[in-house]
């Protein structure tokens, strides 16, 4: 059972500030930084309101195993993330993790294409780091509704990220907005289209709204490229105890997002 190693850990807030419209950037100190893998997630308890009993599942942007710190990016969408955004530097609580199954490296030689929509960026950023560390080249498509939602800092970091990478060809980072206020005027699938039709890829990695991932997965399969998707579900526990976060499978039946995912082979999922 991969989940048997999930533990409860303390965390303390080192940084917690707005990064873009509705998006917050945080840095926490926690021992889980040493064991969490790219694409896995944590389930955070945000103290304060006893009427909201569930934890908040969060993917992460970067984990520093030496410093025992984790960088987070999260959208303030509901009551829980609002309370999280109000946690002060120095505030402490607990998290459960490392949770689930993360990204895996391409099974075949070649370049990777990363497609991030909205707050799907953090796990995509972690995948980029993983690829860079493995010396695998990649291109990135980052999409948002509008310019104000874009995480300029992360996009710059994606452009300059080099750790260990053997640069077989120049990396392309395509930014798009639904309203054309920044970069390509269109959806991430539009940005993905021109890349996948002009470059060869061994693997597509994607995270974002479900409808976007469905489109990305479809396009990847049409081009015969393997595709990994990082799914999001409301979760009761985060470690396989309650079976509430089910994901319908193409072969029928369900998998659990928290335990069998959040990263799935796009072909396994019933879109």
């Amino acid at each position: 059972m991969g989940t048997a190693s999930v533990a409860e850990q303390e965390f303390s807030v080192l940084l917690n500030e707005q990064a873009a419209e509705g998006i917050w950037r945080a840095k926490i100190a926690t021992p889980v930084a040493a064991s969490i893998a790219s694409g896995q997630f944590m389930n955070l308890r945000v103290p304060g309101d006893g009427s909201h009993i569930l934890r908040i599942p969060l993917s992460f942007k970067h984990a520093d195993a030496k410093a025992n710190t984790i960088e987070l990016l999260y959208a303030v969408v509901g009551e829980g993330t609002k309370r999280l955004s109000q946690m002060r530097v120095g505030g402490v609580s607990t998290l459960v993790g490392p949770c689930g199954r993360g990204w895996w490296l391409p099974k075949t030689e070649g370049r990777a294409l990363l497609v991030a929509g909205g707050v799907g960026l953090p796990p995509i950023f972690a995948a980029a780091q993983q690829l860079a560390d493995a010396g695998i080249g990649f291109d990135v498509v980052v999409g948002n509704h509008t310019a104000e939602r874009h995480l300029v800092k992360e996009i710059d970091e994606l452009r300059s990220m080099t750790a260990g990478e053997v640069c077989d060809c120049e990396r392309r980072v395509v930014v798009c907005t639904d309203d054309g206020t920044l970069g390509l005027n269109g959806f991430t699938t539009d940005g993905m289209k021109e890349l996948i039709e002009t470059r060869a890829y061994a693997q597509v990695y994607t995270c974002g709204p479900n409808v976007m991932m469905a489109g990305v997965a479809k396009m990847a399969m049409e081009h015969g490229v393997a595709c990994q998707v990082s799914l999001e579900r409301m979760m009761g526990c985060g470690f396989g105890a309650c079976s509430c976060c089910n994901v319908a499978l193409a072969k029928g039946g369900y998998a659990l997002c928290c335990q069998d995912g959040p990263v799935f082979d796009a072909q396994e999922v019933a879109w």
Partner: protein
Amino acid sequence: MVSSLSMTVDLGGIKMRNPLNTASGTFGNGVQFEGFYDVGATLGAITCKGVAAEPWDGNPAPRLAELPSAIMNSVGLQNPGVHGFVGRYGAYLAGLREKGCQVICQIAGHSIDEYVRATELFEELAPFASGFEVNISCPNIAAGGAAMGATPRAAAQVMAAVRPHTSRPVVVKMAPHDVAEIGRALESEGADALSLINTIPGMAIDINTRKSRLARATAGVSGPAIHAIAVRMVWECAQAVSIPLCGIGGVASGADAAEMILAGATAVSIGTANLYDPTCAPRILAELEEWAEDQGVTDINELIGAFEC
């Protein structure tokens, strides 16, 4: 001083080292919690997820909604069937028994025949089972489930059908209504113990789409919000039957567990709290022991049903 206090209880033939049990469906099958604490060395018993003779897919997504001090779920007993269950978890569960933690396997079914078939398979394949819990109160499956436990007559029929197929202790998981009447019917058909309450059916509507927030119209409410209701039903049932009870419903602290015991519960299951506070069981056990000592007893059994009316 804990040494001078006996915490062992007998849940209808299931001898537990302490009263703490886990509510089916909130504890996986135990192994998911090994990273949080030593399950086999800590709990009196665990109750596994409901299992049917054949695998069930369970209900579509979404299966979960958050409510004030509660959650609502409609998992619908997704399970791999008895063969799959024993294959995946049998060795682990046998290990729990060796550590002194009792293993209660939960039996699910859509019909009396399915309950009987699952019981037969468990008898054959699950030597590690200390006893069984017959779930006649799942609110989230179309046939069977709560329908099987809706009336004293229906509940008694399931119990009467299952009873001849096992000599191991049989606990029946009850729905949150008519617990005195249904409890008496189950006792008369040979139930060794009763566990209550299952989740309380509720509805959460998305007022914009006019549809349920979950895939099904109704789902089961659990958590601190229903604790006081559960304690009352345990008390009502305890007045009506002489077999032991396992109290379930919003237990998140030693005090919550103590209320269940005072109301008449021999064992207490931790449910929803396992999900949001997965390390709570050892803490709850310590709080329960501290309370029992403060009450000046040397045996936790002295406190069962000790509520003063």
